[in-house]
């Protein structure tokens, strides 16, 4: 029997009266890496943010099961404590909040790790991942470039070591060098057993990753699921090629 980390059943999501997700079904097995691809406005980010519990996304129907527990109505912080971690496409700036102190707080809240231990873990991770130490004294995302923001998201994920990591376009707005660093961290986490749901528009990060399953989302529906060959198809012929596959 396959153990599922995440099961999404018949998920219908509205944002201000607009239907965004229309009956999405998805199963992510323990330790699997799934990729969701799709054109702009297809509902990719909505799916990611709905799983994480953003209050803006209104679930009209369906449910989400995480490790056998229905999390559909749980608060975001409760989902995070159970092991769901989202790396944002556009991480917000929070003025005056030093990153080191923020990371210590995150580790305390999510993992119950005390400040001293957290301090060691943070400096260890920074070294291991080759991230510039001076980042820790800066304010949360304030004045950060796209690449820096994404790296900070990945550093957090690496420290938290979640059960399920949702990556919302980790490759957008990022140069090649940063992309390699980010893909490297994803691979490390995957190897350590984290299940991953990776959302991407471009697919260029997939050069460095080995996903088990690739899904394609269009107009709020998953229209195709398959192996890495789907990525090649889309790269060669664009998302319109899928209509032929589906029909």
């Amino acid at each position, binding site marked *: 029997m396959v153990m599922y980390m995440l099961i999404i059943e018949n998920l219908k999501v509205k944002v201000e009266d607009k239907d965004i997700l229309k009956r999405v079904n998805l199963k992510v097995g323990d330790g699997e890496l799934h990729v969701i691809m799709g054109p702009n406005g297809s509902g990719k980010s909505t799916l990611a*943010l709905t799983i*994480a*519990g*953003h*209050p*803006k996304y209104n679930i009209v129907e369906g449910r989400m099961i995480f490790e056998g527990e229905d999390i559909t109505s749980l*608060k*975001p*912080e409760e*989902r*995070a*404590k159970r092991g769901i*971690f*989202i790396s*944002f496409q556009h*991480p*917000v700036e*929070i*003025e*005056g*909040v030093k990153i080191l102190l923020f990371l210590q*707080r*995150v580790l305390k*809240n*999510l993992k119950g790790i005390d400040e001293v231990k957290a301090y060691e873990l943070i400096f260890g991770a920074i070294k291991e991942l080759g991230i510039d130490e001076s980042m820790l004294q800066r*304010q*949360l995302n304030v004045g950060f470039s796209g690449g820096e923001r994404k790296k900070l998201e990945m550093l*957090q994920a690496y420290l938290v070591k979640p059960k399920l990591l949702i990556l919302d376009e980790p490759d957008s707005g990022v140069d090649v060098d940063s992309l390699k660093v980010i893909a490297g961290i994803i691979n490390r986490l995957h190897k350590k057993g984290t299940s991953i749901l990776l959302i991407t528009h471009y697919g260029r990060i997939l050069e460095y990753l080995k996903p088990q399953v690739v899904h394609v989302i269009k107009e709020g529906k998953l229209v195709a699921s398959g192996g890495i060959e789907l990525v090649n198809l889309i790269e060669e012929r664009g998302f319109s090629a899928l209509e032929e596959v589906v029909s």
Partner: protein
Amino acid sequence: MTTKLEDILKAGSLEEILGTALPYPKEIELKGKITKDVVKELSKIKNEPEWMLRHRLKSLELFEKLPMPRWIVGIEELDLENLVLYSKPEVGEVRGWDDLPESIRRIYERLSIPEIEKKFLSGLTAVFDSESVYSNLKREFEEKGIIMLPMEEAVRKYPDLVKKYFGKIFPAGEHKFSALHHALWSGGVFVYVPKNVKITFPIEAFFVIGSAMEGQFEHTLLVADENSYIHFIEGCSAPMYKGFSFHDGMVEIYAHKNAIVKFTTIQNWSRNVINFNNKRAIVEENAYVEWIEGSIGSKITYTYPSSVLKGEGARTTQYVVSLSNGPYLKDTGAKTFHLAPNTSSKIVSKSISANGGINIYRGLVRVIKGAKNSTSTVSCDSLILDEKSKAYTYPHNQSDEPSANLIHEATTGKLSQDKLFYLSSRGIREEEAKSLIVLGFISEILEGLPFEYVEVLKRVIELEFSEVGGVG
């Protein structure tokens, strides 16, 4: 039972720390219509010299003549004639904290004032209602010629020194409440720092209003002689009681040539206090005055620390932090007068409005003709945490000097759902997220404060936004 700093940091709410007002013995109370006789009586109780009585009577005359400022709200709720105008708690001769009656001592202990004094301060004055009940300057500083005394004692002991400055920096006739203050002033502290003396640790004054329907009119006068340094910290608190009390305090600062004065106020009156402040500094050649005006508590607060840059190269920084959490009003700001060449000022105002709170910034930067190459930067940032709360900004810049450079920036930020969601996705609950965002918003100002005060302040703000503390 002494409260440790640690206990304050662990307490569930502010009420838990201070509790409700308890009765304590009073020796004298003056109340009723504010008349010449009341003022004379007050002066007699204080055994004042004739010049101070004359000063009070002249101020009373001004109080009667001056109109009520039209922009004031909330004062009408307070019937001045029903207030206790002077309240002297019954304390004998006090040499140490142990000599204070327990009911009074306990209030200071709950705020861990004696502990803070021991560890971090050069000197401390504690004012309870209308009188300084405790005043102590560590001996090493006394030996350097520093004077720190209850204001009344200074009037008697150093009349010439006091007379030179008292009421000269912030005159009685400015407005109705400064006149009232000068007529009824009582309590407060006088500090004189001699030439070239630098006080390494801060001096603190801590003010408590012990009961309802009282007026507190304390007067603080701080004179920093040439090339001296002092950091003065002012804390204000009050237990909860029914009815209101009125605070109409005054701070006068004179910074002589090359002196550095830092003046920090952390006001955390209970929500029964209507707080009116009069604060002004005169800054001589190449001297520097820094105000940090932190307003957290009170029902209504009016405060606008002012710097008069009188000498060439004089500088000032005014940090104004105001938190209105709940149905309260903070009308705050800063004023700077550039009267000499090459003077510079920086005003940073940060206001936070939550749960229906209102913040108003009122500022003035005035550059007179001839104050060549003077510069001023004003930045006013407002953070509004919900739809019910409001912030208004009324800056006023007036320059008659073409070579002066004035910059003004204002921002209004709302707490966005995306910021809250980001933090909640990291396991940080809404209340914790709010205090984190608020502390981040004022971090620039917190950096200038001693560590111990930052810790207490952080805790106070966390309590404000926790479910049990503040208005919740």
